[in-house]
């Protein structure tokens, strides 16, 4: 009997844990895996939360999914990196206004022995063409994320139809950046990633950056308040306060200050 009572008590204690939190105001930010996996948001959000008293809850998914979730009204702020999609999100009335927040760049990483011989290239389109010609395995996100969209824009500049090669040397994982990096490394394949995820990635094996520095690899992040006219549940004031902070002096300084191994991951470029 005693046993049963103590068991029941234990269960009740477990079930009640964490329920007592005071209802602090919070917003939901639909964002991308790169901002979370790189540790940026964990580093800068406490400062905003302390200043504003608003808790920021981050849902980190691919840009495509983040935009879809925001379109459904399941978030107050969108913080993603695919400018054309962001602009059509605002143009279609789902978002109020788009603000530049920060940028970094994409890089192409590959195994140290560099089977396609593209190491040191700065012309990304030529490097991709080289890969296609030699049929070296390239792993794509294939998930409609910001990185995937940027990668597709680059392939379209090469004039190569990668969809025709899908499943052969061109392999789509349909997963997040980290999962895709793990897959690529397992297959000794080339892969395009944002620099922030790459620097903070813990399973690099012998992989190195092969292609970087092409202006076409520019990666801009933007923030948008989800339109409260479309979704009345959107916490417009708190959401806008977060965007104002991100694009204001304090937020921009916090972004610039975030480093891993002495390397800055994101470069603030909001219009102030």
């Amino acid at each position, binding site marked *: *009997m005693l*046993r049963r009572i103590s068991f029941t008590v234990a269960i009740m204690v477990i079930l009640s*844990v964490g329920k007592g939190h005071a209802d602090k105001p919070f917003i939901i930010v639909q964002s991308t895996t790169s901002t979370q*996996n790189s540790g940026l948001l964990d580093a800068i959000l406490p400062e905003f939360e302390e200043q504003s008293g608003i808790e920021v809850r981050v*849902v980190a998914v691919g840009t495509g999914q983040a935009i879809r979730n925001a379109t459904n009204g*399941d978030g107050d702020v969108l913080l993603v990196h695919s400018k054309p999609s962001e602009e059509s999100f605002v143009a279609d009335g789902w978002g109020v206004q788009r603000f530049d927040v920060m940028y970094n760049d994409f890089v192409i990483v590959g195994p140290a022995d560099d089977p396609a011989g593209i190491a040191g290239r700065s012309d990304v389109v030529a490097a991709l063409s080289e890969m296609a010609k030699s049929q070296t395995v390239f792993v794509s996100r294939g998930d409609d994320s910001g990185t995937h969209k940027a990668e597709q824009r680059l392939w379209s500049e090469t004039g190569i139809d990668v969809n025709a090669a899908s499943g052969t040397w061109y392999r789509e994982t349909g997963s997040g950046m*980290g999962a895709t990096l*793990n897959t690529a490394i397992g297959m000794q394949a080339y892969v395009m990633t944002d620099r922030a995820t790459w620097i903070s990635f813990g*399973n690099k094996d012998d992989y190195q950056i092969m292609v970087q520095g092409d202006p076409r690899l520019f990666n801009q992040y933007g923030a948008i308040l989800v339109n409260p006219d479309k979704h009345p*549940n959107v916490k417009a004031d708190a959401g806008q306060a977060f965007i104002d902070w991100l694009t204001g002096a304090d937020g921009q300084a916090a972004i610039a200050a975030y480093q891993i191994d002495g390397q800055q991951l994101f470069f603030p470029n909001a219009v102030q």
Partner: protein
Amino acid sequence: MQDFASSLHSSFGMILSGDAQLWAIVLLSLRVSLTAVMIASVIGLPLGAFLAVSRFRGRQILVVMINALMGLPPVVVGLLVYLMLSNSGPLGVLQLLYTPTAMIIAQVVLITPIIAALSRQIIQVLDAEYDEQLRSIGLSRLGSIPVLLWDGRYNLLTAVLAGFGRAIAEVGAVIIVGGNINHVTRVMTTSIALETSKGNLELALALGVILLLLALIVNAAVSFIGQGARQTAYA
């Protein structure tokens, strides 16, 4: 193999250090999955018993359907619950998306068929065994459900534990409806997925070891209680 050894080592290190964030995640995992198991048991056990003892047209079809639902893919359940709870969905007004409650709902949907299907099987065997006795004391088929459930309670624990195992180990549904929000909806499995995607394979594996230990402890506790109670019952 070095990975496994060092992961095992660091998982024990994490447990011993009493890392507050780790404990919060462990407790949230338990809270979500245990609540889901309780709700699913309240629905699934009587449902299973009802299917075992009742005789009506279409019963067999229902049994097959519930058995098939044991194979519900978590990611599909996550998607369905997301569409229901989304602000654009029918239950959006409840504002439950990205909360532990949403995760509990998804797990209940996922494991109720498991508990119902397994308990149907268990009760059906019992019912066949005690059919005459139950009728002789004047119980109707449906009236015998409470008696059968009580009598089969130790075997039914296995059905409940199967449900718990599925709930605590599941990632596809909770990551969609919970959003893996730090300090709010991040549980063991979503942490493992996150650390894997960060390339922190050793940490991910260490968390996996802790999750396994957790499942072991819950199962051991339940069988311990069951044993104790059984002994008292037959003493």
